[in-house]
């Protein structure tokens, strides 16, 4: 497996874990409090957890695959990365526009924040998913 693919798998898993945790925490708190929870504590937890998981994971990956890690992405890998970024851009655009539209209806700032954050998480999941699919397929 190419190093870039391993890296994409790592980031996909980290983003999924953090995204699922965030979704569960927000939904659970909303049910308990009957309102959308405050954004800052969840955002801080999400950001810090994701940074720690990805930084530690990438360091471990780089140590285990030292030679591969030093190489830049080759031409084929760059195509896969751009494809993933294009998918992420589309998902993010749809997510943010949807969030803005339902803010117009509901006027809930916290909900808008979480919707946009979820869109960002889904965009990242799409990016890594498309990259991995490209690597698996080979083209």
């Amino acid at each position, binding site marked *: 497996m*190419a190093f870039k693919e391993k890296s994409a798998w790592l980031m996909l898993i980290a983003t999924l874990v953090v995204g699922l945790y965030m979704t569960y925490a927000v939904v659970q708190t909303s049910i308990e409090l009957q309102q959308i929870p405050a954004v800052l504590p969840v955002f801080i937890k999400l950001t810090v957890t994701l940074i720690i998981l990805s930084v530690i994971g990438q360091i471990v990956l780089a140590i285990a695959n030292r030679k591969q890690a030093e190489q830049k992405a*080759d*031409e*084929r*890998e760059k195509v896969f990365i751009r494809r993933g970024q294009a998918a992420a851009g589309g998902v993010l655009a749809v997510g943010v526009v949807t969030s803005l539209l339902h803010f117009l209806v509901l006027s809930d700032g916290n909900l808008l924040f979480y919707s946009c954050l979820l869109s960002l998480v889904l965009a990242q999941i799409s990016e890594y998913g498309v990259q991995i699919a490209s*690597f698996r*397929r080979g083209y």
Partner: protein
Amino acid sequence: MLPIGNCVRELRAESGEMTQGELGERVGVTRQTIAAIEQRRYSPSLETAFRIAKVFNKSLIDVFWFDET
């Protein structure tokens, strides 16, 4: 399969069983990219195609050709 045929695998074998990784290192791509080229799942850039041909001391059209079949 993409319409760019090639004989990279055969040329590697003729060159003293050069591995995909060794060829990749010499032309600046990964082993997986060389494998994808050989299996016609990826068409290399012109520069990479020239580099591969140069490794085997061949001209470009001796290594790659257009094959729509």
